[in-house]
């Protein structure tokens, strides 16, 4: 180990801790760390920029534009209210169906966006029913983390893993879809058992829900039609992208450009305001930081250690990765965690063969996505959901959230372990 290596590891671990503590904005930390790596000569600028996975960056940007325009049409509120009315305002059904909505939306949108859109409506419905919104908010956040695991675009770790491992949209649905569905059904059952006794409401309260006129939440029907057409095209594009030889980022950018054109492309800046530039630059910073670790040989060292530990046994490695990722994601931000793990798994692939390590990729995705539910701070969706509830006077403490979510996480990880063991 030389001085540069120690400095590099020191900076990386400091960044990791600071990102986890959330006292300073994580984008600033990641960028500062990345630039320090370049200044210190750990990685030169050209290599650093080449380390950025542009497929991930442009997929994120494209989806942010599409979702940003679509969410303003009110379609998601429409769906939520329609759902609540469809079950005649019956609370336990609403609770479960809102979980279903959160999971389905999260498979297409990113989890944080889903929670940001749905939580306010969920609180409104709960308040109108005269119930505490807390069970609804917790269930929705947990469901969104589970639903997001099912697709390539559902959760940032999946986007990164798919891009790095060359796994397509359909691969995620085929390999992760079944386990996500099984886990989701189990989670719904748990939610039902946990909360059903707390949800008793009067007929009068339920009638208030029936008074809502969901049609009025659609402000611009013409725009909505355009959004739905583009969204459908993009999803079809994702489903067949491997067959037509295109990468997901191209599909997303095509959709974004088309939707901007259709929705009156004069003020293009307005659409780009929908992009969360902070998140984008967080990814850019992380890619450079992790690239620096690769340059230093740290990643190689770790992956060899892991291989020695498991003696190259794929099944054992997969189990190790599921549980390591589950625990790590519950404590630290799963995005930098996965960003660090990716080159490690890639390196293992060089030894074991890239086909052979596929189960490890899936294990990484399952562990890090489900692990996010481990604690309140394990996933951004949890933090955002609890934050919105808190702002409305319904404080959800770390322990309150975690006592439900940790239990659910352990169950989902056990089921995933069994699935990976038998499937691959």
């Amino acid at each position: 180990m030389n001085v540069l290596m120690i400095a590099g590891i020191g900076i990386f671990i400091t960044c990791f801790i600071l990102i986890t503590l959330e006292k300073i904005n994580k984008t600033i930390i990641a960028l500062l760390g990345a630039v320090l790596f370049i200044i210190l000569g750990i990685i030169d600028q050209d290599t650093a920029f080449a380390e950025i996975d542009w497929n991930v960056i442009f997929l994120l940007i494209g989806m942010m534009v599409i979702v940003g325009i679509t969410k303003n049409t009110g379609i998601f509120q429409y769906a939520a209210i329609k759902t609540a009315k469809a079950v005649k305002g019956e609370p336990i059904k609403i609770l479960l169906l809102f979980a279903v909505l959160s999971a389905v939306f999260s498979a297409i949108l990113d989890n944080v966006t889903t929670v940001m859109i749905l939580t306010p409506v969920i609180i409104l419905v709960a308040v109108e029913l005269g119930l505490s919104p807390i069970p609804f908010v917790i269930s929705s956040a947990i469901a969104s983390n589970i639903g997001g695991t099912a697709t390539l675009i559902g959760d940032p770790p999946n986007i990164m893993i798919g891009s790095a491992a060359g796994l397509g949209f359909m691969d995620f649905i085929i390999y992760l879809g079944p386990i996500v569905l099984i886990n989701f059904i189990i989670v719904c059952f748990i939610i039902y058992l946990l909360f059903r006794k707390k949800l008793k409401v009067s007929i009068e309260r339920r009638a208030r829900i029936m008074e809502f006129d969901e049609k009025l939440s659609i402000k611009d029907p013409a725009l909505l039609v355009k959004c739905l057409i583009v969204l459908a095209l993009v999803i079809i594009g994702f489903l067949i992208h491997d067959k037509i030889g295109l990468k997901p980022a191209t599909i997303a950018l095509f959709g974004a450009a088309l939707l901007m054109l259709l929705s009156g492309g004069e003020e293009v800046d307005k659409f780009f305001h929908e992009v969360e530039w902070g998140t984008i630059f967080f990814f850019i910073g992380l890619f450079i930081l992790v690239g620096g670790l690769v340059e230093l040989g740290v990643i190689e060292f770790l992956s060899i250690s892991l291989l020695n530990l498991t003696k190259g046994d794929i099944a054992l490695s997969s189990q190790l990765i599921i549980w390591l990722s589950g625990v790590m994601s519950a404590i630290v931000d799963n995005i930098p965690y996965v960003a660090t793990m990716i080159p490690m798994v890639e390196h293992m692939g060089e030894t074991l063969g890239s086909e052979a390590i596929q189960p490890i990729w899936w294990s990484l995705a399952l562990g890090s996505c489900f692990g996010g539910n481990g604690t309140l701070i394990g996933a951004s969706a949890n933090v955002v959901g609890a934050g919105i509830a808190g702002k409305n006077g319904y404080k959800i403490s770390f322990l309150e959230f975690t006592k439900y979510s940790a239990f659910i996480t352990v169950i989902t990880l056990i089921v995933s372990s069994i699935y990976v063991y038998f499937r691959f």
Partner: protein
Amino acid sequence: MKLSSLIEKDFILVNQNVTTREEAIEVSLNALFDKKRLSIDKKRLISEINQRDELGGTVFPTGLAIPHARVKDYGDLSIMICIPEKPIVINDIEVRCFVIMLTSTAVSNLYLQVLASFTKLSMDEEYFSRLIAAKNAELISKQLAEIYVKKDLTVEDLMSTDFGTVSPESNLKELTDLFYLKKTSYLPVIDSDNRFIGEVRINDLISIGIPNYAVMIGNLSFLNSFEPFEKLMLEEENILVSDIMKKSQVSLRPEASVVEAALELTQGNYRHLPVVKDGNLVGILNIMDILVKVLRR
């Protein structure tokens, strides 16, 4: 510059035997036309002055009337003073002094400053009585020499110094009453040591009535039966001004120019801004002040 240097002695008419506002304007314009060769018709001037008077705000409770007009292509600033023998009653006010002013349509700071100076001097009752009691034009001119007119109009000239304030310990019920009574939508928050610590706008009060989740949904048109002010009504005695007040983000200096004030008001979409000097609140500028005291004066 001295106010006296803007008014020619020939245009100061004392002890005038006039009994109506119209007569006062007539004699003043006669003096003007005697002295100056004007290409403008006298009737047109009178009609312009009358039009402006119809908008109101030219007669002050202090006993001063300022019939004035902005006339296209006038190209000068003319000020005539007419002091009637006996006060003339206009709108229940005993008018003791007329100041007739004419200028061109372009907004001139000087013109506004002169207007401001006259309204201000009329508030000083002792000075004002002495002025109108003067025997001749010479004496009046001498007295007016004591008044200095600033060339530039500043926030200080427009702001109101008579404003309501609220204490941070007041509850929302008291705050709502105060907004209602003062007919304002802005109140500065002043603590017990008389320090300016924040401000409340009516938006801050009303938004309490809309829950945060409703704000986040953004579009509430689908709600037919929602009662927005439930929380506000229930808790108006428990929520304090200090809970909803905001730190003043933008304030104006008294010496700030009108254009600076206009910029701050329009950029921030404010209706009121505090005027602060050395950390102390000295006035409130209402966006209506710009309309009333600059655009339509």
